[in-house]
């Protein structure tokens, strides 16, 4: 019998318990393959060559949000105009450092989440708890590709997170004064941070999927309710906020054991909502991050449980006013509250219910599980008796709107520049439609409140005016399915690589949308109708489920949840984003037979040249969204940001006009070929949805497309450009390698344009292109950017 980590007792020996800590060696461990591959567990410089290939083509462009550096006491230093500061760093390198630091912050948030969860789950389930993510032979694709190991148990992830944490520490060290000074190397480091972020995310999600019996590659995962209008506020309402489901599972277990799901509304905001419903679909999803302050201000929650990430810093100020107790369950967010973990549950309930303490820390999750349901049932009648009124009454609303002087302070304070002043003016006249329209565009930050010189609680006014639409906010969300299983990859991989499935559009990230949450629904719908595979996660996944067609059905009800063309997959919470990159890795492994183990560069090269996947963080606002996107970038997946995206300070646009940047090798013989710019950009932004739509289609082009695939992709690119921009795109012809690439319905028309406007020679009898394209299609072409992967290479 192999010695396992954990605890056991010896039969017939009372009071004897043996604890086994780390197992240094066991038969099983020795059998396990050791890390292998060309670049197992790469250090900061381990994939630098690959980064340089990417950055040579996609030169970083910086958009400083602040022209100064204030890192040390030499400063502030004015770096405007790419000047150097006192330490010698110039604006370009400083901005690269800033972007890297934000990427690192995002990566550490996911890794910190993962470490907390891993420690907790090992204690609860044992290190030998097996990994079970569904039908797959590649249980942890990102981990295997980056570290060169194949975890089998959750305990196997301990050294994986050790690696991630080491990389984060080393990367953070480079931001100190007197360390890195070159922008290009900060970029390489940022890409490294993005890559390790995907490892950290993968660990976090795989261990919770395995331990909590969440859906495992389940295309028909259950549908759950989502929206601010779904909560029955006549019942006690227990609201959870954050990303780490560990503590909340105890609440759900207690509620199941005591038949409380009919008596208490258990709901959540942000990614904890995803993971709660993956554990138990009886829980409800209020919505995304942008609903947080709005929902607290509604006064509906009777108790709030917070864990970590994306939780408002002003939580206690907001909740105290409304007599909503807060229980903080994770030491990343403690709000200065007293630690009551060792206290008696009844004492804690007494102090919270009386308001003697507005909130407590509670790190004993058994106590959280029992206390939360008991407390919320006690709080609901107390709050009702006190007569907590959150939003203004009708009279108060009219007075507040009338007190607005139209000074516009709220407008210039609003990150979206929403015309709140005009809505106030209309409301005074009894017209609430402007506020109702504004409600969906409002990201719920509350900056308007802070700016108002008349102390009008502007957000409350917006929400009061929008009660009618809020009551109708009832949607459906398919719970997070986790990974894409191997059988699905086998079935769909060929379509994706050949391009007959036009692409994968991954709509991820936060709700800082430029024009309201309806955008992501409409983007998803358009791409689904065009047979793209739409993958989603996090806040975007929730917002996509908030809108319905004429028959009252959401996209999750209209489209399947499998990995096949025209399907809509919700992978789950933020950390489930790792399954999106993992899917492309699996295509390389299963469809193309590539050895992924410790072989990041080759796999990224394959993904970039073969798999038409594009990420979209349309409302990306957090550092995590940047790190997720940067991790996609290192794997060769282009990402588009919304118009707030340049605030991340750096992008990787391509230059289609610079032909030298689009040389690529044929792995069959190492010959160099000049190819079309595909994908044209690695990280770019768009001003609005209309500009975005054709851009998404264009970024699915790959040098490896066959004729049929290119024809399909080109059809969508042209159609989307004509639909949203009103024109045939001016660069469509550079993606044509032969007449077979042309959309069937427009072939004659396009051949004529090629001849007349671009000087191509056409054989009109055969409708063939004789001269013009930069290259012809060669179905055996093996595009690569890595010389060592070419036949006969010396490496």
């Amino acid at each position, binding site marked *: 019998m192999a010695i396992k980590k954990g605890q056991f007792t010896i039969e017939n020996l009372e009071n004897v318990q043996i604890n086994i800590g780390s197992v240094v060696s066991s038969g099983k461990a020795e059998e396990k393959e050791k890390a292998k591959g060309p670049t197992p567990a790469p250090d900061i410089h381990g994939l630098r060559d690959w980064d340089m290939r990417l950055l040579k083509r996609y*030169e970083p*462009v*910086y*958009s*400083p*949000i*602040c*022209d*100064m550096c204030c890192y040390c006491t030499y400063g502030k230093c*004015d*770096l*405007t*105009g*790419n000047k150097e500061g006192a330490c010698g760093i110039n*604006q*370009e390198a400083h901005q690269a450092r800033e972007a890297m630091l934000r990427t690192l912050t995002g990566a550490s948030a996911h890794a910190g989440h993962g470490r907390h969860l891993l420690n907790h789950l090992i204690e609860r389930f044992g290190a030998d708890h097996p990994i079970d993510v569904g039908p797959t032979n590649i249980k942890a694709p990102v981990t295997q590709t980056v570290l060169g190991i194949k975890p089998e148990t959750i305990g196997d992830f301990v050294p994986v997170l050790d690696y991630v944490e080491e990389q984060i520490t080393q990367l953070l060290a480079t931001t100190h004064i007197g360390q890195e000074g070159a922008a290009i190397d900060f970029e390489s480091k940022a890409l490294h941070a993005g890559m390790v972020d995907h490892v950290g995310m993968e660990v976090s999600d795989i261990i919770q999927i395995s331990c909590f019996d969440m859906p495992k590659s389940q295309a028909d995962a259950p549908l759950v309710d989502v929206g601010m209008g779904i909560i029955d506020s006549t019942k006690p309402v227990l609201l959870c906020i954050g990303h780490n489901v560990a503590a909340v599972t105890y609440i759900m277990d207690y509620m199941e054991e005591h038949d409380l799901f009919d008596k208490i509304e258990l709901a959540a905001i942000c990614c904890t909502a995803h993971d709660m419903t993956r554990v138990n679909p009886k829980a409800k999803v209020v919505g995304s991050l942008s609903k947080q302050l709005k929902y607290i201000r509604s006064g509906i929650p009777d108790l709030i449980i917070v864990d970590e990430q994306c939780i408002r810093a002003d939580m206690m100020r907001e909740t105290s006013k409304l007599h909503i107790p807060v229980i903080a369950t994770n030491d990343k967010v403690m709000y200065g509250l007293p630690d009551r973990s060792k206290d008696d549950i009844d004492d804690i309930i007494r102090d919270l219910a009386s308001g003697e303490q507005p909130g407590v820390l509670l790190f004993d999750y058994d106590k959280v599980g029992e206390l939360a349901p008991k407390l919320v049932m006690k709080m609901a009648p107390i709050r009702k008796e006190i007569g907590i009124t959150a939003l203004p009454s009708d009279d108060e609303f009219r007075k507040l709107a009338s007190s607005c002087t139209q000074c516009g302070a709220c407008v*210039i*304070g609003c*990150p979206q*520049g929403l015309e709140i002043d005009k809505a106030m003016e209309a409301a005074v006249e009894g017209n609430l439609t402007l506020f109702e329209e504004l409600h969906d565009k409002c990201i719920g930050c509350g900056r308007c409140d802070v*700016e108002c010189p008349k102390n009008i609680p502007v957000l409350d006014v917006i929400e009061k005016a929008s009660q009618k639409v809020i009551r109708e906010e009832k949607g459906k969300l398919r719970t997070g399915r986790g990974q894409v299983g191997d059988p699905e990859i086998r079935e769909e991989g060929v379509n994706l690589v050949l391009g007959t499935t036009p692409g994968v559009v991954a709509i991820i990230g936060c709700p800082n949308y*430029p024009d309201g949450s309806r955008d992501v629904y409409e983007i998803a719908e358009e791409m689904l109708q065009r047979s793209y595979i739409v993958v989603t996660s996090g806040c975007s996944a929730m917002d996509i489920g908030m809108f319905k067609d004429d028959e009252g059905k959401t996209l999750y009800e209209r489209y399947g949840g499998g990995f096949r063309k025209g399907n809509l997959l919700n992978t789950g919470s933020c950390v489930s984003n790792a399954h999106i990159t993992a899917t492309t890795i699996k295509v390389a492994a299963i469809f193309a037979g590539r050895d992924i183990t410790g072989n990041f560069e080759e796999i990224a090269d394959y993904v970039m040249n073969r798999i038409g996947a594009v990420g979209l963080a349309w409302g990306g606002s957090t550092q995590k969204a940047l790190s997720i996107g940067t991790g996609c970038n290192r794997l060769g997946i282009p990402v588009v940001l919304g*118009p*707030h*995206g*340049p*605030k991340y300070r750096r*992008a990787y*646009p*391509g*230059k289609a*006009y*610079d032909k030298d940047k689009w040389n690529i090798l044929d792995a069959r013989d190492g010959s160099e070929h000049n190819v079309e710019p595909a994908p044209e*950009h690695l990280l*770019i*932004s*768009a*001003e*609005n949805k*209309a*500009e975005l739509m054709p*851009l998404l289609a264009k970024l699915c082009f790959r040098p490896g497309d066959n004729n049929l695939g290119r024809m399909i992709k080109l059809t969508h690119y042209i159609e989307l450009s004509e639909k*949203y*921009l*009103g*024109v045939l*795109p*001016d660069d469509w012809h550079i993606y044509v390698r032969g007449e077979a690439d042309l959309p069937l319905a427009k072939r004659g028309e396009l051949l004529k344009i090629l001849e007349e406007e671009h000087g191509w020679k056409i054989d009109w009898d055969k409708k063939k292109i004789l001269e013009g394209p930069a290259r012809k299609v060669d179905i055996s072409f093996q595009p690569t950017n890595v010389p060592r992967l070419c036949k006969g290479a010396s490496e």
Partner: protein
Amino acid sequence: MATIELDTTKNAVPFDKANIPGPKMAKPVQAEMAGKFISKAKRPLLIVGTAAGDEGVIEAVRSMAEKGIPVAATGSSLKRLKEEGIDATYVNLHALVSYLKDPDWKGFDGKGGYNTTIFLGHTYYYASQLMSTLKNFTKIKIISIDRHYHPNAQQSFGNLKPDDFLKALDIVVAQL
């Protein structure tokens, strides 16, 4: 001294209140002066965003295009411009600032880069952030004739009321 018909230098504070980039911020400019600067530019490029299609603004775009200023249509502005028969080239704004930064870029007409950029009709925060690329990494002049004060331009109108904004555009165009 001549009376200024419309003062476009008033209220020159970032429209997004916290958008204070640093010591170097745009000089508020009178519409007449902005027009003169544009008219003297050797290689100007009018960069318009989606709001360039708004009533009153599109007329200014047309006038500038007819004066020979090439128009870069960013966002989804091209559709409206084409409907109005205005010659323009679609380009993604984020990509465009990277092209403008490239000394080897030949411009839309193949004759070389541009020395003056004129911004009009943009989503405020988007354009502001991308102007910062030009401000920090190029020698290109940035003139904002948009409705709100853009600190990352070299010259910008202050925050204007809608009617004053349209009047200001008329004044600019009259100088060309």
